[in-house]
């Protein structure tokens, strides 16, 4: 008897929630309290008692530790506590994969994926270290003025743009799509603050090739998602939303330090994306709507190429705003406003938006969104991506 080793169709997402989103450092509440609020709200969205939650899955060394959450929330029993290694938002789909794996293998019944951030309480991402000395990997870059995330990734994007003659307008299209969609999403911090081509072109450089609007926000807040076995999917208020596939990882040598990744000009999905499609049993053309993590717009371009939505040589033609706008674009992209214009919740906001599209509950709803993809944290390692599907996919 062969055992089918897949996550396809094994779990369902039955509740999602986020706290109010704040500009970085402006949360009136501590980070752990934000995490509690997000978990409770996600349980309420699913119509379940928090006591039933028996697992937590997170990433990026989230500080809201599972046992502490379980005790604070009065859950009946803790069965799994899963942390995905790696920084940034590379784990925003892997945390779903790990939660799903726990459920699919009978380790847990109801797992919450969460991410909470309060940078006023714990310090800011986009700043260099205020220390006298630096050792280890940082010693080989910080003294040369290379210390922020934008600086860590700019040279990958520059090399990719050079190799494939990619123009700045491709990056601009990603920024414009996020801002366009945020204008319909009251949760978005850039709601009521539209961006057009001229605004983008006039914006200052952060580090070439990134203008200000190519870079994600930094925000405070928390988000959570509730997963249960697929056979319970129809017992909840929302339409069924099944996980079709979820994968993580990176190619050989991706973690080589001092910018020695042998496949440098990539978003780290060259080996990951094919595994996602194989598990989900779909092709790029089947994807109805895409959430693709914008730490920096150039990472979105490479991640989408690696997921097969266009060839590198087609980027300048494909990356146009009209292709990315819901509901009628060829591939509606970042329909909540994403990290750029909704909020930077290390990508869990994008994962939630992918679910809302399947539920038919997005503020930029794509009609009949049966296959909904989320790509997490391009250019870090490990990265991850996942696909959710409607009842029609099962």
């Amino acid at each position, binding site marked *: 008897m062969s055992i089918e080793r897949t996550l396809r169709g094994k779990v369902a997402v039955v509740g999602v929630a986020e706290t109010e989103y704040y500009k970085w450092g402006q949360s009136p509440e501590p980070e752990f309290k934000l995490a509690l609020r997000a978990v409770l709200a996600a349980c309420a969205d699913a119509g379940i008692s928090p006591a039933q939650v028996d697992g937590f899955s997170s990433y990026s060394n989230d500080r809201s530790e599972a046992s502490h959450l379980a005790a604070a929330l009065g859950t009946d029993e803790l069965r799994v506590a899963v942390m995905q290694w790696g920084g940034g938002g590379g784990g925003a789909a892997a945390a779903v994969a790990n939660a799903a794996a726990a459920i699919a293998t009978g380790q847990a019944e109801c797992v919450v994926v969460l991410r909470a951030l309060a940078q006023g309480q714990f310090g800011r991402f*986009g*700043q*260099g*270290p*205020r*220390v*006298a*000395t*630096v*050792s*280890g*990997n*940082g*010693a*080989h*870059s*910080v*003294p*040369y*003025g*290379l*210390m*922020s995330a*934008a*600086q860590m990734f*700019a*040279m*990958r994007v*520059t*090399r990719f743009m*050079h190799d494939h003659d990619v123009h700045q307008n491709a990056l601009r299209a990603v920024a414009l799509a996020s801002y366009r969609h945020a204008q319909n999403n009251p949760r978005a911090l850039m709601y009521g603050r539209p961006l057009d081509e001229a605004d983008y072109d006039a914006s*200052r*450089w*952060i*580090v*070439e090739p990134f203008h200000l609007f190519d870079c994600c926000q930094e925000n405070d807040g928390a988000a959570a998602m509730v997963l249960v076995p697929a056979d319970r999917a129809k017992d909840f208020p929302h339409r069924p939303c099944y996980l079709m596939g979820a994968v993580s990882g990176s190619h050989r*040598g991706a973690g*080589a*330090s*001092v*910018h*020695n990744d042998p496949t*440098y*000009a990539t978003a780290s999905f060259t080996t990951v994306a094919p595994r996602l499609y194989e598990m989900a049993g779909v092709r790029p053309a089947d994807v109805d709507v895409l959430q693709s993590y914008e730490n920096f717009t150039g990472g979105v371009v490479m991640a989408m190429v690696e997921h097969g939505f266009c060839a590198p040589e087609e980027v300048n033609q494909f990356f146009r705003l009209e292709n990315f706008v819901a509901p009628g674009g060829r591939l509606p992209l970042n329909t909540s406003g994403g990290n750029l214009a909704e909020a930077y919740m290390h990508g869990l906001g994008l994962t939630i938006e992918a679910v809302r599209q399947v539920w038919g509950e997005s503020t930029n709803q794509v009609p009949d969104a049966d296959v909904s993809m989320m790509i997490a944290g391009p250019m870090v390692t490990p990265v991850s991506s996942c696909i959710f599907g409607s009842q029609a996919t099962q």
Partner: protein
Amino acid sequence: MSNYLHSGLPSPVAAGDGLDRQFWDGLREEQLRLQRCRSCRGWQWGPEFCCHHCRSFEVGYEATAAEGTIYSHQRVWHPVHPALADQGPYVIVLVELPMAGNVRIVGNLLGDPRQPLQIGAPVTGVFEHHNDHEPAFTLLHWKGRD
């Protein structure tokens, strides 16, 4: 001669595990020393305890020429450290070293920070000593080569 970047950034020190001490000691002596496997003769950088080609732990350091080509580059405009608040734009290059197995190293590109930047351009190393620090250290920068 003034340094390329304003002073006040964190100073590099060798890692406590000793892994990159020979690299930093080499720069003090104006020599670029990188890791090379004694078993398979493969080069590697950044430093690791074992060879990622053959997994041998017999990894040593060898001197190589500070000559390479620009693999990628970035011109930084927004300062993320107080020491750079009045710096203005500066250029970081990722230099590929053909004589050391094409490993790469990060440095600054000397000269006008607004100069055109070209992937593939040949560059040669320039050692920048910071003798007024305790401990003193040396950085390796790059300049265009005809």
